């Protein structure tokens, strides 16, 4: 799929509209994972809008988003960056062999108090 088609597909799946973004940075200011991200939420919005998808698809930033929705709640323009991040992440992990987390990784990550909820959530976000 070429990047123009992929961009359209990402927009369709996410329901988000990066054209409304004005790079004010409120999403990035609200983002608790800001420091851990190579591409911050406002940059993510701009890059999706520009069809500059390849660096995003390969970036670890996809797996630093907490789906906390603070970026969307505080956006004055209704952009909802987390939806775009999710749609790009799904494109990445839906590729064959590209699961970010596999069942084999789990035993090493467990601790006795860890709630089931953490495991199913991480799987839902990082794996297809």
């Amino acid at each position, binding site marked *: 799929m070429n990047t123009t088609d992929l961009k359209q597909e990402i927009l369709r799946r*996410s329901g988000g509209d990066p054209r409304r973004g004005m790079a004010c940075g409120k999403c990035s200011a609200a983002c*608790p994972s800001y420091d851990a991200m190579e591409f911050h939420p406002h940059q993510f919005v701009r890059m999706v809008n520009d069809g500059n998808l390849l660096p995003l698809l390969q970036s670890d930033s996809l797996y630093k988003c907490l789906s*906390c929705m603070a970026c969307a709640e505080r956006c004055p323009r209704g952009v909802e960056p987390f939806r775009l991040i999710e*749609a790009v992440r*799904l494109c990445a992990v839906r590729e064959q062999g590209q699961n970010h987390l596999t069942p084999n990784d789990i035993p090493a990550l467990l601790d006795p108090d860890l*709630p089931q*909820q*953490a495991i*199913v959530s991480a799987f*839902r976000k990082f794996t297809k």
Partner: protein
Amino acid sequence: MKVTYFPGCTLKTKATELDLYARRCAEALGVTLEEAEDWQCCGGVFTASRDEIATKLSSVRVLQTAFEKDQPLVTVCSACHNVVKQTNHALQTDSAFAEAVNRYMQNPVPYVGQTRVLHYLELLRDEIGFDAIRDKVTDALKGRRIAAYYGCLLLRPSGVMRMDDPENPRIMEDLLTAMGATPVLWAQRNECCGGYIAMEDRALALSESEAILKNAAAAGADTVVTACPLCRYNLQKVAGNVKVVYLTELLAEALGIKEEPQ
């Protein structure tokens, strides 16, 4: 009053106190939580992508169970609540999604989000009423300074959750007051604890949770209260002297129906 109840997987395993006291307190307040039959795990987080259908079906099933019983659906875990409520909203607003779901489920009566989804807090506020709770509590929580922790999932996305003001909520503070405790005012009550990132980047989760706990402690809280097992897990790692407890445990304590630890 009888309602359909969706406990979710974590309340059956690591968070049994959250479940046990949800039932007991509801009973003490005149509401029976009827556990839905054959429910399945909600998946823990909502997948916002519109083309994700299979991952939302477990929520659809439990919504439908409540619809068939003509009862509201009550959840306690913040994460279950968020997933089930967002799924219900998607059925109401996204006709392509609703069509795919109903075709797959072969529903005789189309399910398009008719069920009313209530979080336990909403059950307490809107159905039972905080005044009725005030009338029933002991003075067990008197003098306790408690920080209400909302996190992300109870409030956002606010257009869907519609529980309270997403930036200045009061439902838990009002409940704490009704329970005889003193709610503290603090800034970080709707910031994210790190959630599922604890699985693979523990340091990141710890730093998110630390900022939250520090803020609660600086506001003079002796206890932080939450409705979410994952929030509790993350916050407890950095809690120090501050107690992190479940909403329903605290309510049971206020109502005088909490068992003493052995």
